[in-house]
């Protein structure tokens, strides 16, 4: 593999890192920090897209960091799923950074917002790219600590209350994950995920199964599935909207990514998939029900995040229903990931604009934006309808695949749950639409602060709308021009369903499982 490809593999991790460090150097120069961050994110995105192209054209890319051969050093590896996820992460990073130019207050900016944001993206990209399970833990922690900081940055009461719950539950998840890694090492004697996949076959039953459950619980908490999602609705609406936006788009997705990786590569079969399916069903319905009783913009969206996680892991749960169905389901999951990351981020960004315009996120005190801001209304409606799966927007296609896979697999209950969740999402979106856009703005009560009267400066409006519009365009593009995305997802699903390719790319010397192929030397 060429060196440029190797460098490319590390870019999504190292470029944000370097950007963060540079921003740290220029702690007192906000302007420069902004510039560096925007440029850094753009570079990350470029590298990520380039990486995706490389993976798409020449197959799985592998890098042995430090030139130590595969099971011994740390492997950085990009298959299509990883490349897609990294590209999306970089894209959201760029969108959010541009949005931050207007949507982030000066005080937070001068207390390390940009360095931390960059580190967050670094951690997320690292999680997507690593081929080593302990390294995955490390990237999780990088991401987590950055998210802890971002969620608490500013130190307002709601932020702190939310952060406590967020941190505590995520730390429990980390502890379980770490413990599972420790025992896994004992059981299979390796940390490289491909190597684990090979070796765990000779250590079935007993601890191996239990470990799969521990991973399920640990990643489940991070992915915010039923009944372990409490941290998410408790905290996502508390930081500035732009922070919620990147959280909404990416954090739970890392958990889902880990679940996918774990249960396609290491545990491709077993009873766990049934459990995942049950969890998916409850997640779909509970999240949806939660969404319709909230009355604050971002809280509604938070519950929708949970609900839609159900869709993604539903595909994972359907994986064991035969190859064709499994492929359709996983394709749906991958496409749903693509769609969901873009749409969720965008919705939170829009909610930030709304909040900025009207000074509140409560439905009861919002209104009239259909008249006042038709463009904003359109930019909300596109991701919102996509969220609800209205065809032919981006949310429809993966849902179609998943429902079809569920029907073909004969798992009608999960299909029912998915459909119920869809209608609940639609309901919640309709509520937002009616309250925020259609309804007239209620007379502000005497004791209410009046909405911010200062009109947005043009540059700020641009910084707000540019990323929002760009993401909305992506949604439309995926919706109307779904074929390339569908094919991409399908190829990713193919790679997931046949882990041999992944394993062979990482452990080329491994002719048969066992100690024979372990005599590697640098």
């Amino acid at each position: 593999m060429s060196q440029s490809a190797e460098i490319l593999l590390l870019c999504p991790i190292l470029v944000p890192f370097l950007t963060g460090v540079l921003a740290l150097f220029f702690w007192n120069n906000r302007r420069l920090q902004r510039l560096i961050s925007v440029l850094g994110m753009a570079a990350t995105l470029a590298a990520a897209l380039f990486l995706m192209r490389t993976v798409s054209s020449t197959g799985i890319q592998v890098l042995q960091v430090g030139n130590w051969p595969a099971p011994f050093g740390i492997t950085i590896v990009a298959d299509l799923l990883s490349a897609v996820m990294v590209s999306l992460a970089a894209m959201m990073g760029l969108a959010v950074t541009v949005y931050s130019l207007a949507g982030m207050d000066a005080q937070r900016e001068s207390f390390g917002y940009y360095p931390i944001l960059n580190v967050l993206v670094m951690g997320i990209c690292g999680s997507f790219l690593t081929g080593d399970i302990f390294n995955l833990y490390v990237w999780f922690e990088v991401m987590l600590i950055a998210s802890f900081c971002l969620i608490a940055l500013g130190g307002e009461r709601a932020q702190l209350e939310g952060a406590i719950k967020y941190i505590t539950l995520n730390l429990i998840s980390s502890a379980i994950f770490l413990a599972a890694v420790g025992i896994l090492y004992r059981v299979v004697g390796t940390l490289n995920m491909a190597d684990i996949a090979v070796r765990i076959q000779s250590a079935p039953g007993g601890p191996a199964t239990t470990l799969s459950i521990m991973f399920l619980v640990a990643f489940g908490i991070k992915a915010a599935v039923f009944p372990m999602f409490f941290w998410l609705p408790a905290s996502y609406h508390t930081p500035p909207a732009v922070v919620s936006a990147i959280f909404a788009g990416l954090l739970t997705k890392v958990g889902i990514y880990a679940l996918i990786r774990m249960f396609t590569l290491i545990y491709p079969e077993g009873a766990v998939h049934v459990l995942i399916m049950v969890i998916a069903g409850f997640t779909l319905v509970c999240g949806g029900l939660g969404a319709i009783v909230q009355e604050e913009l971002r809280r509604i969206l938070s519950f929708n995040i949970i609900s839609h996680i159900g869709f993604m892991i539903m595909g994972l749960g359907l994986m064991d229903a035969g190859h064709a169905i499994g492929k359709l389901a996983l394709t749906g999951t991958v496409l749903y990931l693509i769609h969901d990351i873009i749409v969720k981020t965008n919705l939170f960004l829009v909610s930030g604009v709304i909040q900025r315009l009207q000074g509140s996120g409560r439905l009861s005190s919002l209104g009239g934006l259909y008249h006042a801001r038709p463009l904003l209304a359109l930019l909300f409606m596109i991701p919102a309808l996509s969220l609800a799966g209205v065809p032919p927007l981006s949310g429809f296609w993966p849902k179609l695949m998943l429902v079809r896979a569920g029907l073909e697999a004969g798992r009608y209950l999960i299909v029912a749950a998915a459909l119920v969740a869809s209608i609940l999402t639609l309901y919640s979106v309709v509520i937002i639409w009616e309250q925020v856009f259609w309804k007239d703005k209620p007379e502000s009560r005497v004791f209410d602060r009046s909405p911010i009267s200062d009109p947005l400066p043009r540059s700020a409006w641009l910084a707000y709308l540019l990323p929002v519009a760009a993401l909305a365009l992506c949604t439309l593009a995926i919706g109307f021009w779904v074929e390339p995305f569908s094919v991409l997802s399908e190829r990713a699903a193919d790679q997931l369903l046949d882990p041999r390719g992944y394993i062979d790319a990482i452990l080329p010397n491994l002719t048969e499982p066992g100690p024979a192929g372990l005599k590697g030397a640098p």
Partner: protein
Amino acid sequence: MHSVILYTATRYMLPLLVLVSFFLLLRGHNEPGGGFVGGLVAATSFTLYALAHNVAKARRALRIDPRTLIAVGLATAFVSGLPALLRGEPFMTGQWTAFELPVLGKLGTPLLFDAGVYQLVIGISMMIIFALAEED
């Protein structure tokens, strides 16, 4: 409350502890120690100094702003991975000098990496502890 005894003892312990921390850093590749422990010992010594005297004096003793130390540490660790790229090897492949130094043995990029860790650990510990101690 001030204590002459602590104050005086600390004045003499600080250089010694920093020296030890240095020592731990440099020989960590061959014996127990390394950037983490070294950094932690140095951090402990400045913490002690802050407890015995006050944060302002400890800041002066450290000379470098913790935040800068963090940035430099991260940058050092990062830079240590780069030489490999020049030789067409993967990021972070260790590069070593041909000659050997006493104590250190061969010089190499992993040592540079560890030095970055060392600076960073001092930086973060002091950033946290100074900020906390200044709360009072």
